């Protein structure tokens, strides 16, 4: 049913199975193409037998700007998962996990210390998914999201910054066990 391969710009014309799902955000063209231009190996898709995209992951490789090198929030060279989505019809087949693993392979190939991502603290399903894949909470970013996903009376929601160490981090220096206790402001996140 699925083929895994690197994203191609023409795939943007075949995103409907993923992006018509209300939980998947559709970005500006430049946003997708920025990722494809800079980090093509971290932009992977799963396609069905008709060429429809039924899942994709977008990631990037970066470190914090040099000016923050001596900040406690400085992030060394790492991969970041920006978006991962699977079409409703292709769920429960482990496609999300396979896409994430492919990104981790690319992160290792690029000598990243870790892979990180942001997730709403109330998105228990996603948190469990990432925990099962070896990710752990590194810190809590207070009021990271401008609206709350489940409670309309709240104007913001916290995010977990989750991380998984890559091969380079032999001593596991970039993860911690008590990440839920480390709170930071959105301005500390780059």
């Amino acid at each position: 049913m699925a083929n895994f391969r690197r994203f191609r710009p023409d795939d943007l014309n075949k995103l409907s199975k993923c992006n018509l799902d209300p939980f998947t955000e559709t970005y500006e063209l430049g946003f997708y193409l920025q990722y494809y231009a800079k980090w093509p190996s971290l932009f992977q898709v799963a396609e069905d037998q008709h060429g429809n995209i039924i899942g994709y992951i977008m990631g990037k490789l970066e470190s914090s700007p040099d000016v923050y090198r001596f900040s406690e929030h400085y992030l060394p060279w790492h991969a970041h998962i920006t978006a991962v989505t699977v079409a409703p019809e292709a769920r429960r087949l482990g496609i999300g996990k396979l896409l994430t693993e492919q990104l981790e392979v690319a992160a290792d190939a690029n000598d990243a210390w870790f892979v990180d991502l942001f997730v709403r603290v109330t998105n228990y399903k996603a948190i469990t998914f990432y925990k099962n894949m070896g990710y752990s909470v590194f810190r809590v970013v207070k009021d990271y999201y401008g609206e709350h996903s489940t409670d309309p009376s709240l104007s913001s929601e916290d995010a977990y910054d989750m991380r998984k160490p890559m091969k380079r981090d032999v001593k596991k220096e970039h993860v911690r066990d008590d990440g839920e206790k480390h709170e930071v402001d959105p301005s500390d996140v780059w």
Partner: protein
Amino acid sequence: MSSYRYGRPALKSTVDVQLQTAFSDGNWSSVVRLATKRAATLKDPYYEAIKMCAQSQLDGTLEKCAMLVAIDDLVKAKKTPDIDTIELYEWACRDFFDYEVEYADTLGPLRARWAKANPGSPLALQCLQSCLENWDLVSAQQISTSLDKAYANTSDRRYMFWNIILTFLLSISPQCTDASRKVYSLLAVRQLERAADLTENSAKLEATDRGLLTEEEICLYYRVLHSHGTKEEFISRLKSPKLGAIGQLKDGRKVLFCEGLDALEKWGEWDLIYNLCREALTLGLEGTTAPFFVCDLQIWRKFASAASKTADSDSALAEVQATLKKYVDIKDQASAMYKKNISLALLETTFRLPATALNPNHDNAGLSPRVVQIGLFLDQYFERLSAFDDVKSYVAELGFDELKKLMEDVLPKILDEDADKARKIVLKALECKLRYLLTTCPQSLSPQPVVDGETKDKLFQCRICANATSLLCESCLKKLLVDASETYKQINGDKELLAAIPRLDKDPRLDLALVMGTSLLKLSKLQPRTSDATQSLWQDVEAGPFLQAVLLLDTQLRETPGDTELRLLLVQLYLLLGCVSYAYQLWTPLDVKRTIQDSLSPLFFDRISTLSPGLIQGPRPLMGPLRNFYEHSLRDKSPVRIWDAFSAGSYTSILDMTEFDGNLRRSCTMMMTLVEERRATRCYGGKIDCEIEEYILTENINDDTNLVGKTDYGPFPNLESVHGPSIHEYLRLGPGLSNERSHLGFLSEQYLDLLSYKPPKDYKPANASAVALRDREYTLETLTRLSSSMTTFLHAPTTPSLLTPAEHTYYTTLSLLSAALLIALSTPRSDPSPKTLSMVTKSIKTALTTLRTTALPHHHPRPGPKPSSSSPAWTSYTGTETHALACLHATATAIKHSAAFVLTFHDRELARDRSGRSGLHRDVLAEMKALGEVAGKSAAEVKGWIQKLKEGLAEGGWLDRVLDLVFGDQNDDQDGEDGVARAVEEVVAGERARRSGRGGWWRVGGRA
């Protein structure tokens, strides 16, 4: 990014504070004054540049253009100003580049010269970036050559590959002259060949070596080779140990392998495909790569397909099976996705094997290995949402006896009697979908013997129910519908089942509703909306089952509002019915925005101006976001984010992004956006901002441009087999977007622009006669071009099949009008009466009559379903009629305006030239006047009919009358013996009972 993109360039630090301040404040008069003084005192040409830059910001046209003249002088004199001056000039010229001032003729060459003189400067890189962002490939290639030479022995490998890729891009670009194209092609290939040889022949490459190291570099080589090299070279390299597909796979690089297979498939190199797939899959088994690294379905398909085409196909297919068996043995280690891929690969290989290889005694009857394999697959995956889609194509390949066995023996045995109720229902829903599929497969029919002299409308016998039938067995469809409705009601009546639904992949009622809905559409005799489809929906389609389908699916959408497939289906159905506002209500939650608009917007907006012009024009035009998307994405001449790809060394991304950008600039959806908006505005007599050719989006589109349609039909449900059209082809108003239709739309708008052009009021030429002469020449030239282009597109063999009949008449009329105007304006008064004009106008009148006959009901009594025969005509008025009516209105308006254009032209000429010599021929005027009057009458008829429609809608109670169309009057027995209508009614009513307080369509449930 050049600094000018963020604001004014910084002046050199040596410039005094006073001048710096005036410049940063934008105090241009002061800047001119101060810079003039400094230039005189210091004799530094930089101050002349500042002065000119400041002058260009003043209002005077002369001052603005002085900058261009200066640049032109520099380019012609082959002088190289300093980089600060270039920056100033570029900033000052920034607005000119959108208006026919080519960067490649102005700043590009200056940048290239400067970079050539200063290749070691970091600013040379900025020159390259600027040229790339302005898509001046000639200058960019020159700069990259300079940079490559300067950095030949460094570890920054990008310069070498920038040079190669820009040489390649230039070689395939229209910017390259034909004379140079071959040279650049060869240059790109040879440089890469040399690099590839170095890699193949070196034990280990250093970053400073000019070989191929990274995956991007290697893939670039193959892309260039594929484009400019020979097939033999490509194949030879693909087999090589280091740079070959298998060698790269061993290094964990899959891109080349996949791209290589695609190329080989196009060339039909089956032996090599077979060998590569075998080797690649063996690598996984041996542990050289991750076990399931290449275990994609397309690899298995290519492997099996290639094996069946090799010389010794028997042993090759045996090898495929043996490899697959090894994967089956380790399947437990795989993720669910790869397990499923392996199961599908088993299916694929079973179907590709010759029947004799599967079972020597096989008689293609009953429980064949193919049926067994489908059974095994469904046994594992029938509960998955995609199960039907996974097996659909295989089931459609089965012989009738196999189908029978599958449906009667295999499928029912998948679950035991005591299996979970919810699972049983899921299986039942799948069975219904498969039964529907069978009705679309030709193997379920056999030809009926024809008795001499007897004509039969039922030429076949259904092998399932044994009834005589046409191509579609109505009896089977009706039975399926009744069965599906029973299952539907069973679910709704069982609390346990209802409670189980959230745990399932998909609500089975949705599948059942889709089966019932599509069955009803087929029973209504709906045909694909191709060019030969009748204009009136009800002419061939029975309203009862059609509207029952809509009602049923609409009811289901309320139960499962999150299902996009169903929602899209309904959007199309309502558009077909002409209920545009409601269709828009359904469309809105899909949230089609930003990037996906290009592929999905045609599903709602195509031909929308003919259905509901009011919806898309007004203070907040609905198509605004779509136009903004193109204006924003195509604002720059270069592909979006192209410099990012250069910086990152993503060479294949550069090639793909360039191709994507080219397609987006030639998008049929983009042309649709512009044309639909303008038509809607014109419909309401609104003011059109500018001529269609003046839009920046159309600047490079001419008759030779191949406009690209990328509409995504992927999200539609499709229960049909490959033997017939997909469901979306039944539901749209007419053929989808195409190059030919888009061009005709573009040309017709150009024609209408010509008619509506009025010179600015304050334009008072000194020599009015000379200007009038030039205007006339321009008009004649434009008409000649438009007439010729429209005729060419209309006469293309495929064009009629790409338009609705009403569109065809509209475009034909406009083509004839342009010819008529050409004759009218070019026939001297002294000549005899032009006979060709009367022939053309006669054709125009005939076309108009044809459209009136189709679009206006009193010209053409509509056959309709029983209830409509006693209803006012407007109750049977659907989207198809509205479309034809809009085309009639547009045609009549175009004729009226054309006639008015000729008469006004004549009056103007008479007013200017009292001698009357430049006026038009008397017979021409009479002919055009008569034509205008005929068109005026038609336009008035359209207006009158629309008024009637409005009044009809205002009468009230029309919904009841529409509902009568659905199930007939209470006293009618529409149900017949098949019980279809009652089955649908019960499903709808059942849902209503579960949901109270609904209006509109829901009132129908009150009857149950």
